[in-house]
């Protein structure tokens, strides 16, 4: 299953709903382009909803890191929402779980922005 991305606004925060696989190639590029497009439009409060992301490889992990740092470097903030067990475990073993701001509830994620 290839990756699909859509975004919506909730109280000034952009929720990016991702589904499928974030892997080398199309999936990583789509995520990169989406985040950069949002930042270019001034939408700097971003939540990546990964509830329907069933697979991620090292390139996908790198893309999450890139999205996180790109947002931060442009004065924005990016949080992760609804990790599947596979993605959660990958972020744990790569020690990235504590780097990202990970939320399990969309309302809490939106409220967490300053």
């Amino acid at each position, binding site marked *: 299953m290839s990756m699909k991305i859509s975004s919506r606004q909730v109280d000034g925060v952009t929720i990016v709903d991702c589904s499928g696989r974030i*892997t*080398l*190639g199309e999936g990583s590029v789509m995520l990169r382009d989406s985040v950069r497009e949002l930042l270019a439009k001034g939408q700097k409060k971003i939540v990546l909803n990964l509830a329907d992301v069933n697979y991620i*490889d*090292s*390139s996908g*992990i*790198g*893309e999450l*890191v*890139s999205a*996180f*740092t790109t947002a931060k470097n442009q004065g924005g903030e990016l949080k992760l929402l609804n990790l599947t067990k*596979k993605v959660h475990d*990958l972020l744990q*073993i*790569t*020690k*990235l779980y504590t*780097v990202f701001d990970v939320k399990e509830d969309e309302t809490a994620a939106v409220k967490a922005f300053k």
Partner: protein
Amino acid sequence: MAEQRVSYTLDSTLETVDSAEEKATNIATELGFGEDEVMQISMAVREGTVNAVLHGNAYDPHKKVTLAFERKSEELVITIRDQGKGLDLSKIPNPLAPENLLKTSGRGIFLMRSFMDVVEIRPSKTGTELKLIKHVHGTSAGGKEASQ
């Protein structure tokens, strides 16, 4: 499990990466590995093939990737060979080091080591040979590496 070996010669393309992962998933499933182990094996093969296609052969259409699965009595042995310049293991940074945590690449070999029981990387003049071994009843924590 009956001993059996199957090998493929593949182009240096992104499609090869997906194909290798799919083959690994099918073979690991056929061999009776559990769902988590199948995912670990398929991801290790995916990462190894990515390294062969991108870093080894650099998408060169004249260079091939060979992928072999060998079913032994108590283990699955996977070999991935490329025709690249070879890999300098000493230049691969530790992705868990604080200064590397926010790097956007460099986690492939680490993931392979995390998911497989044995990871052997042998650089050579004709490329790099990567051997991945998963024991049928082995533990996956902390893959051992025997390089060179």
